[in-house]
């Protein structure tokens, strides 16, 4: 059951940031992830600082540079249904549409989707695991069918977000506001792998708020897509997925981003797969080479080797879809 906490709803970003500087506080966006964590005692909170009083954090607007600015409090449903996003950043629209369920997409926000905590059943369950300050990762020798095949070190979570791999593939930036002002970080650098620090998933410092996501203008000949494999049709995180963004000029791939989901503790960019694409025509042979490269070096645990062919398939299907 949900423990008790205080709830404040500041009406300026400054006040929100100030409130969040106090220990024991947590930012509350849509609450779809946060309240579950509190109820399941994943972590405690004395005070929730709602971001719902900050209208400037909502909305999708064009940037001067030809990109799009997405406020952190924009709902996932809005992102999924926005015509500009569907037209120019298809991977993001598809990823947002693949999130959870209609109710959760209506309530959950883009910022919350990027900042959500891992879905590992040990982390969420009654297990004092490494990420919660305990001594070990229960997944290594435990029930690890849903855990990572890349980048697991001391902790074997997969990053839960669908929008994150799409946004990494689209070279998105995030703006983080803190007491001393704001900073802009490439989304790819926003996520923290366990090798760097297995107790956090993002570079957000206490008191910092993610205020917006900026996707730059797409490269020439841009096309992108997101392919997600899951155990059931809705309300389910990715078993495996791939976000791919390409720039194709003169029939050849000039720009490529291949990012896996359900694969690693962070959205897993695979430069080897990108290299296999760049400079080539997007034909069957190239696609197969890139798909192979995407999963080369995977290190499955006892129960998740199936993810390797699934990831390969996701990359192959995403690239094939971009070929037509």
């Amino acid at each position, binding site marked *: 059951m949900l423990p*008790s906490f205080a709830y404040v709803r500041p009406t300026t970003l400054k006040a929100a940031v100030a409130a969040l500087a106090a220990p024991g506080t947590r930012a509350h966006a849509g609450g779809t992830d946060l309240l579950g964590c509190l109820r399941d005692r994943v972590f405690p909170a004395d005070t929730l600082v709602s971001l719902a009083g900050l209208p400037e954090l909502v909305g999708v607007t064009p940037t001067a540079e030809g990109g799009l600015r997405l406020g952190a409090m924009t709902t996932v449903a809005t992102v999924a249904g926005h015509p500009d996003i569907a037209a120019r950043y298809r991977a993001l629209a598809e990823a947002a549409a693949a999130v959870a369920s209609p109710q959760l997409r209506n309530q959950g926000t883009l910022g919350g989707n990027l900042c959500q905590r891992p879905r590992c*059943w040990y982390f969420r369950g009654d297990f004092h695991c490494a990420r919660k300050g305990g001594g070990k990762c*229960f997944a290594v020798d435990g029930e690890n069918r849903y855990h990572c095949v890349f980048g697991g070190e001391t902790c074997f979570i997969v990053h839960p977000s669908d929008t994150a791999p799409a946004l990494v593939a689209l070279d998105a930036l995030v703006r983080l506001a803190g007491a001393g002002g704001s900073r802009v970080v490439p989304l790819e650098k926003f996520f923290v792998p366990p090798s760097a620090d297995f107790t956090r998933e993002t570079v957000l410092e206490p008191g910092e708020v993610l205020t917006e996501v900026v996707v730059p203008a797409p490269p020439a000949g841009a096309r992108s897509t997101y392919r997600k494999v899951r*155990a*059931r049709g809705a309300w389910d995180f990715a078993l495996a997925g791939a976000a791919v963004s390409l720039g194709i000029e003169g029939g050849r791939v000039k720009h490529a981003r291949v990012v896996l989901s359900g694969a690693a503790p962070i959205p897993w960019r695979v430069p080897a797969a990108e290299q296999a694409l760049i400079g080539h025509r997007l034909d069957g042979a190239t696609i197969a080479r890139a798909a192979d490269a995407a999963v080369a070096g995977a290190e499955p645990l006892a129960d998740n080797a199936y993810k390797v*062919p*699934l990831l390969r398939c996701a990359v192959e299907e995403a690239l094939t879809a971009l070929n037509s």
Partner: protein
Amino acid sequence: MSPVCFAPDSGGGGGASTPAPWGETKVVGARLPRVDAYERVSGSAVYTLDLQLPGMLHAAIVRCPHAHARVKRIDTAKAETMPGVRGVLTGESPGAAIPWYQGREGPLSLLFDPHCRHEGEEVAAVAADTALQAHDAARAVVVEYEELPFVVDPDKALAPDAPKVHDWGNLLGQPRVTTRGDVAAGFAAADAVVEMTFRTPVQMHTPMEVHVSVAQWDGDRLTVWDSTQGVYAIREALAGALKLPLASVRVVGHYMGGGFGSKLELGKYTVIAALLARRLGRPVKAALTREETFLVAGNRPSNVITLKAGAKRDGALTALEARLSGPVGAYPTSAVSAYQIGDLYTCPNVKFETTNILIHAGKARPFRAPGFPSCNWALEQVVDTLAEKLGLDPVELRLKNIPTVSQLNDNAPYTSTGLARCLTEGAVAFGWTEARRRPKTAGHLRRGVGVAAGMWGYGGDPNATAIVTLYADGSVNLNTGASDLGTGTKTVLAMVVAEELGVAPDRIQVEHADTATTKFAPSSGGSQTVLVNSPAVRAAAIEVKRQVLEIAARQLDKPVGDLAVADGAVVVAGAGGKRVPFSELKGLGERRMLVGVGMRHPHPEGKLALPFAAQFAEVEVDTRSGAVRVLRVLAAQDSGRVMNRLTFNNQVFGGVVQGLGFALTEERVLDRATGKMVNANWHDYKVPTMLDSPAEAECLPIDPHDTECNTVGAKGLGEPAHIPAATAIANAIHDAVGVRPLEAPVTPARLVALLAAQERKG
């Protein structure tokens, strides 16, 4: 006033006056929306979970977090001083030393047993003003445990050095062997023999409404509102646990949010609510959290089934030999059923051995045809494989082996069996032959079709009493002890009254599932609710009709034989016959009401009335991702008469989707290192969603017009609609990609591995 009007036994069911079977019906069988649809959809229906009584407290239960542990010490001091807390209950509290779970030599455990044999066992309980306060306080109870070695893997539980669940070890009873004929001779005579080993998952019940009770005392009398499948069964168990006379205990179970078998037995939470309510002098609600229901409210045990089958060239089965085993959890119940191996098909030589294993996990409870879907998973895949080996159409092979008698019951004949019709008419409606002829595509999306037959083995409790009361204005009260789990029981029983008494269903008020105000009905489980209660209701309605006609005969000075009831009136035979509305019957006006008591008649002697089914599925398998999409399902069901086509379809589609979960997505996962369940929630435990349900689902009722099974001609439906569903999908997967999914659920992980192994073999 003629005394005959008040002789309830004269028309009350019993053998002699058993009414003739219905011919054509007017109301029964129609597509009638539920009588309580508005309440259920608008949210005004009060489920037990919604119930609020003045001064009501809320209970929360302290549970053992370990798979196996001994409680050394319980410290409730802090919890007792927390805000809102009214009382704490432990095994030491007066009256709380209640024995629980019967073994062969007496009780095996206690309401609060310091020896906790699975995660979630009850250790203490707290009552507080609000549920949140109660749960906070329960967390503040300090319990010191000695953790003990455990075994949760049934494959390891019978090893000599496995930690024991009970002193005697982990084998529950001895493996039981059942034999008919000579299997060795049967296999020797076979032209084809197949042997395979199957594994099925632990499936969870996941009813929409969690398990919940509200207890209130009035002096020495206890009233309990319970989300239960059977108020009478709960009353008996509750009175036993609290050592109260049956007459002092009232159990009420009105709106109910599903059970699937997990709400047939008394839960500890119910007794805990009663004990706290007695001590604190206030009503107490004990509602489990969703997570708790996964740990302590039952499950369908996993099964390991090795099945060998032999058949002649023409498909006639010569022998079936099987070993079935499964874990019951930490306390006795049954984990397996070989019934269909013994009885679905004619087979002279059969042998099966069943083994029940104890492990340190929550006790199993009956789950929609206990043991049958798991056994079906093995039997119907083996039969399919035989057909393949013999080059026969799977439908053809099954048709070769249709029994007309129950071989497990001294060859007692069935009152009816529509199994052959389910297969043949189902195949036609599905387009089976055409679908099988379609060439297989070469790409990564492969289609396949599959069939599975099934049967259910319980014919119902013959005892039930119903009361029908006709009031002076022509409105009716139907009084039945039956619980309506959400299946439409109230609606179907009201339709029976409407049929016999000629009143519109909306003139009928249903009063049900309350041991104080209704009479005995068996629990709504075992697919018996309609077939047990409808005949009792029919008998009661017929008795009221008899009284109506007698009154009318006197008033109109006509022989009873010239009168009939229709549209809330008595009608005189013949063209332009006079019509007297019930409200204008003088005798009824004087008496204010006519009462008919109806009792269920006995089952037909020497015969069995059982339902049968055959289901057909078409799937599309993505060979790259291992994803299986069920494109369409056709369920041909011989459940006798269709009482209401809408609720009939609901049962069938629900059974099919629950079977789809069994086949593709649902599976309890226990952590091997700690014995704790890791997916005890609705996200990690994957019940299929609407998007996973077949886009096309068709239900084909096969009514054999059974005039012997009972006086309404209906057989069971809830379970037979579920039993073959998973296996039809498995057989369709095999047809699509050529691999045998021996292990359920067929997740992308398993299917990708099977396909990779197939590729390696070439």
